[in-house]
């Protein structure tokens, strides 16, 4: 039974706003693993790790990884085949 020791993508908002000039958590992404579409805010985020890991709520595949060093960040989005970003 999954002990639900994850949070959700809402908590990525601050980290991602240091990198991007818009809020990414309200964008939708497609899981490159199972094809599920969902909001970044609704991903399962494991924050107690060496970095932030966001997983697909459908198949648990890794969607996003973010590693923070003091003066730089490493952002891996390849677990999503695209991000749909509202511009209007």
């Amino acid at each position, binding site marked *: 039974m999954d002990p639900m*020791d994850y949070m959700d993508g809402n908590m990525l908002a601050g980290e991602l706003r240091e990198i991007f000039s818009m809020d990414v958590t309200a964008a939708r992404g497609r899981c490159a693993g199972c094809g599920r579409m969902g909001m970044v805010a609704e991903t399962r985020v494991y924050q*107690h790790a*060496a970095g932030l890991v966001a997983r697909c709520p459908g198949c648990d595949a890794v969607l996003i*990884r973010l*590693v923070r*060093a003091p003066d730089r960040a*490493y952002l*891996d989005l390849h677990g999503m085949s695209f991000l749909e970003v509202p511009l209007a």
Partner: protein
Amino acid sequence: MAVVTRGFTGRGHSDPKLPPGQYLTEDFPVLSAGPTPRIDLNKWQFTVVTEAGGRHTWSWQELLALPSEDVTVDIHCVTKWSKLGTRWRGVSIDTLLADVESSADYVMAHSYGGYTTNLPLEDLTDGQAWIAYRFDGENLAPEHGGPARLLVPHLYFWKSAKWVNGLEMMPEDSPGFWESAGYHIYGDPWREQRYYGD
């Protein structure tokens, strides 16, 4: 330079014995990048695969039947906490690789749940690494990597793969889960090799 908040100490205490940038902790933080795998001991297997395709496999019972060691080591997590004098029981990697024929210089450790981490073979041998299954006198708990994890205390603890289920010999180095996400390919805490390019 971050702003210091009066009266905040948090869980981290400095100690001159620690590698640079580390803080001492008394508890044992659980760090995980995903759900904790629950593994049936009847199905648990540990497999060494050589670069030629040779396979050596141990069941749980076979692992426990191997000569084991009790070791006391200091561990250092890249998230800055260190724990001194941790006690483990496990099988030395030297024992597991004794009959393995390989000329590969690198190893990828694989875990249940998909985690991977890469190491030079010479960092796993000569008494530097174990497959550990007991911690602090008890069976290793699932959230800390049980039933068995890799233990390589001289490198940052992300290299001590939880829920380990195999070693893959590699002729060339190749980055594992965190190494391909921005962490250092080697990870020596004494040279503070945390991130890519450090």
